[in-house]
């Protein structure tokens, strides 16, 4: 692969990666948010794949395949399944099922509205570029020049985590944060060592399983997955 083609493809993948995070802020349907998260996982796998092809490292290509399977396949599947249980449990319930149905699968009232969220995303991206300046200066290659994208997604993930009220939207926020960190690792240093990468992926998978189960318990206990209703414990 020629150098310029590599750079273009890498920038394309990074652009898609960032765009997916921004569009997550724009959409309110949880199903659409999960689909975007899966797309972002694909972009992340593409970044790893491109780096692997560029450096002729087979282990990176295998890692890319694993990341694609986990982040574009398994994790979205798990969240979608959690979403489906929430919806079917509701639908079996009362006659007002239609109403609660739309409540549970939509982010009806995020703490910050869509326009302000998108502006914040722009501001966070600028902030990421400002913060990442020393990182890029240390070793300016095509990959590290795209590094601020990873940090921007980390910040956007945090923003989603803080401003979204549905439990599953928060899970996606956490996963965006994690995608951003993985992308940063790839762009900065072609990924962390394999044993660490495996451990991290395993931890993320378990964290999502735990959060999925807790979501069900939150709904059992509070009758909703709106995290803002969790106000029993305070000082």
């Amino acid at each position, binding site marked *: 692969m020629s150098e310029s083609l590599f750079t273009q493809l890498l920038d394309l993948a990074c652009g898609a990666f960032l765009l997916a995070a921004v569009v997550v802020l724009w959409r309110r349907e949880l199903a659409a948010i999960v689909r975007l998260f899966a797309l972002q996982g694909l972009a992340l796998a593409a970044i790893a794949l491109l780096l692997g092809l560029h450096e002729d490292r087979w282990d990176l290509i295998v890692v890319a395949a694993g990341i694609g399977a986990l982040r574009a396949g398994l994790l979205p599947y798990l969240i979608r399944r959690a979403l489906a249980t929430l919806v079917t449990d509701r639908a079996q319930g009362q006659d007002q099922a239609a109403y609660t149905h739309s409540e549970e699968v939509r982010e009806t009232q995020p703490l910050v509205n869509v326009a302000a969220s998108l502006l914040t995303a722009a501001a966070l991206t600028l902030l990421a570029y400002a913060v990442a300046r*020393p990182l890029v*200066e*240390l070793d300016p290659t095509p990959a590290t020049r795209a590094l601020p994208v990873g940090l921007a997604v980390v910040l956007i993930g945090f923003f989603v985590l803080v401003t979204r009220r549905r439990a599953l939207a928060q899970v996606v926020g956490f996963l965006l944060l994690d995608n951003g960190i993985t992308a940063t690792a790839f762009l900065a240093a072609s990924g962390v060592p394999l*044993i660490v990468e495996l451990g991290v992926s395993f931890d993320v998978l378990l964290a999502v399983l735990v959060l999925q189960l807790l979501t069900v318990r939150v709904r059992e206990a*509070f009758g909703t997955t709106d995290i803002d209703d969790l106000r029993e*414990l305070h000082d």
Partner: protein
Amino acid sequence: MLHLSQEPALTALLLTAPVAAPLVVAAGYTLTGLAAQRRPRPVSAARREETRRPQPVVKAAAVSRGTARAMTGADDKGEGDDSVPGKPVAAVRARGRHPADWVGLTSPVVILACASLLAADVDDGSVAAYSGLLRADALTVWMLLVIGAVALIACASAPSYLSGERDADRATGRTVMGVPPIERSREWGSYHALVQVFLGAMCLAVVTANLGVLWVAIEATTIVTAFLVGHRRTRMSVEAAWKYVVICSAGIALAFLGTVLVYYAARQAGIAEAWALDWPTLLAHADRLDPAVTRLGITLVVLGYGAKAGLVPLHAWLPDAHSQAPAPVSALMSGVLLSVAFAALLRYRVIADAALGVDFTRVLLAGIALLTLALAAGLLLAQSDYKRMLAYSSMEHMSLIALAAAIGSPLALAAALLHIAGHGLAKATAFCVSGQILHLRGTTKIGRVRGLLARSPWLGALFGLAIVALLGFPPFSLFASELGIARAGFAAGSGLGWTTAAALLLVLVAFAALATRATRMLLGPARKGDAAVAESPSALWPLVLGLLACAALGITTGPLGDLLTQAATVLERP
């Protein structure tokens, strides 16, 4: 002295065993649990069997309660169907009825044994196995000893806690949040497995030299304890579990980003991929790390592991999780999990000091320590729940350790490590006692627990002594360590002197808050109608042992003194 380092296989075994033993025990619990579920029987028979199994304990408890209450003349509602008169023998045997509860003691014993054997090996450096993946130096051994000791207290007091909890499940009604008691008893089966995996993850976090694996282990502790925090399935405990997982995972994700940036800096400094996250290698080449990148990475690491150690700004999970978790788990979380996360911070601090000079981490840690201390002291003043009170006291002590790390002189570091041990022992005891108080009084409100000393002298005395230890009175080791931190602070120069003075003022506020609340719980006459409840001092021996160890450490560090000095040397700038 016995030197084992000549035998690499033995070293590998000693390094692996603290991690492997808890995991093996956990696997044992899981397998026996599965075997009990999978017995090929018709469902109805299986159900009957499972309801029958917890029965002896319940009967026994009901009988013992019945007799206790009959003596006091208190009413005994809602237990009539369970209490079978004429079988008092069962009451005597009640505690022995769950031998599985005691198997969990194996792993703390193994951890302690391995740590003491390793102690002989590390007096002149370190030992490593699996090409440097596992590594022990004096700090590792010290942390392993603390983990083992606190785990011993927590696991040994688990049987009496669990039998109390099983009684409470029956006494408070057939279902808790729609979960029938059969399901609940199965859930208690997974309790042991989760606690053991938790122990294994913490041991891995201290014995690994790879900063990436360290991160994986600390994140694993979050995942494993999530269910333990939310085990009660009430609104409060589910909320605590959710906040715990989300805040800790997000916080610790920051630490991973920091780790990635340090890795990037290390790769750019010319360290090979396999060694770029290896702590000794990083330390040796720290002067070659790019300062700007390292500064960003270290800041993120301090925020991230600080979240797990209960430091500002991501501390919000701590009081909720500590107050909702079962008492032995609270003891483990407060006593060692916080300090394991802090030990990770201490390791990064050395790298940062070598790469950036001491001022950077000093300002960062001192600022965080003061903020955490102010917050903890303020919230202690307004506290009406004794488990949350203990949780905020943990934050207070962690911020003192952070202050000691900011000072960074040999005296301060040794005092910080001693403080980790003393706080672990005292806080574990306090949390285990608070679990018993909860069973006894059925409330966590300070105002409704009065006359504890008059009504249950053993429990009251233990709680009082644990609080006295936490307040920093001699002979307990927290006195010595707090004194050491203060002395080191005033000796370190005017800036840190003022910080230490401010910190001491805040500690005084926390002291007053804790002392008044504890006296309110302990003193006062027993209410009319509550005579002394039948106590079982035999169940309290682990707690007595914990306090004795804490006091012994305060009087003389004995053979541990050398280890403490060596561990502090590990943390000094090379």
